[in-house]
């Protein structure tokens, strides 16, 4: 995995930039371990959870501590506030109960980061409105019948969920491709959103 890999993921780069060195971090849905590698360089004690065995094997063979498991069921094993940060990147929309997962994130981590593809991006809206079909776009690349995204969410929806859960949005970032997008109009213009939360 190249050092540059994290540059291809602006959501992860934003998260990495906010995590202070030497922190304890749980990366839920850590994939190939791109964020974990970047955080390890900052001296962080990083643990990962990943459902895909091939990804886990790749992480472990690079010396990362990753457990093959399902975030839906396995987060309960982790102690309260066992981590300074809990990171959930591009995974919330695959959870069976995103609301409960957000609770779990804020239980195991003092701070939480959540990133997800924004279903209210104009391209998605256009695909549905004019195409009349479930969108297959740059940020949502898999057809409805094989996607793991079972709970599509928008920027507005997530803000509302955070409010209901009593979580404070400490910071937020929005991206179209790799380009940052301002908060104003983000629900229309952002393909991806990243939130930093505390409770």
């Amino acid at each position, binding site marked *: 995995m190249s050092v540059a890999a994290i540059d291809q993921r602006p959501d992860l780069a934003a998260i990495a930039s906010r995590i202070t060195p030497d922190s304890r971090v749980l990366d839920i849905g850590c994939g190939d371990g791109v964020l974990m590698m970047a955080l390890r360089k900052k001296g962080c004690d990083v643990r990962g959870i990943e459902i895909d065995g091939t990804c886990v094997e790749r992480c*472990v*063979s690079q010396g990362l501590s990753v*457990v093959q498991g399902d975030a839906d069921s396995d987060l309960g094993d982790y102690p309260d506030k066992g981590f300074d940060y809990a990171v959930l990147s591009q995974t919330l929309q695959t959870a069976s109960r995103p609301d409960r997962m957000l609770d779990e994130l804020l239980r195991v981590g003092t701070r939480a980061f959540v990133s997800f593809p924004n279903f209210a991006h104009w391209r998605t809206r256009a695909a549905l409105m004019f195409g009349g079909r479930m969108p297959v776009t740059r940020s949502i690349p898999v057809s409805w019948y094989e996607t793991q995204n079972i709970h599509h969410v928008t920027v507005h929806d997530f803000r509302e969920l955070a409010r209901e859960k009593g979580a404070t949005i400490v910071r937020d970032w929005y991206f179209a491709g790799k380009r940052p997008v301002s908060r104003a109009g983000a629900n229309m213009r952002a393909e991806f959103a990243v939130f930093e939360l505390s409770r």
Partner: protein
Amino acid sequence: MNAHSQTLTLPGSLPLDGGGELTRVELAFETYGELNADRSNAILLCHALTGDQYVASPHPITGKPGWWERMVGPGKPIDTDRFHIICANVIGSCMGSTGPASEASDGRPYAMRFPVITIRDMVRAHIGLLDMLDIETLHAVVGGSMGGMQALSLAANWPDRARRVLVIASTSRHSAQNIAFHELGRQAIMADPRWQDGSYYGGDGPDNGLAVARMAAHITYLSEEALTGKFGRNLQDREAKSFGFDADFQVESYLRYQGSGFTRRFDANSYLYITRAMDYFDLAEEHGGKLADAFAGTDARFCLVSFDSDWLYPTSESRHVVHALNAAGAAVSFVELSAPHGHDSFLLDVPALDRVIGGFLG
């Protein structure tokens, strides 16, 4: 590769979990690769039930290659160019370490006078050996199956002695099914008239019983898919069924061969004692009933690996340990690898296992 064979006698006596102690405990072990100047590159490999210290050197009785030759050697995942590998025959076994076939203080074999030992007793002896070798902290302790139990026991009871703990196809406790298969093996040995309450040394041993025990155990080490793929319903050296009780089927012939081959290299009483030690193994029970407490405060890094076709120590057993390690806040990795061979996958050609082991050992 340069293997170095040695036998050392532990000083003093070895206290045992069952009460009592063993004196004049001998440990036979092999080493591979050089110990570095600050004695920090040692890896303790723990062998399985019927394994021994001949990890990567020919077996002195069978002449067969070492049991983990594919994993241990120069440039291999457990790299003898970088690490000093130690593998000791467990106490209770029969390849040079003190066991039921060894002489007791009266000059006669212990036989059934040998005390019932536990996995922790085996590890206590390993720790005694590390003390003698002046190795304070291991780079890693590594084991599959019963070797994995020893690795877990070492991590739980001597947490400062290993920086990494690698547990493959193993468990933190023996299940009812595990105990049941072992009891079948033990009863086969004890039902053999040549067993003679264990006092068969100097004459013919209970080879028939031991062979049956091995045959039953061997079935548990393989997946149904592996047995079907290897043998199916193929007949052995014949065109038609014999309508008798010869080994008509290839699978029968194979098991008989495995059984009889085993009796040439293994002591029946050792089989009784070691299977008992495994049945008694319950790491949570040793630590007040809560597995997470066994690992409280550990600084070691753990890696657990299971195989999807292993029904002897299935993935759920590894997950059980992983959950406890997470609850204890330990640094743990876990992966279930896909391999068709069943429990024996950890000994066979599974390239993903090589990558995981190499990466974890760093």
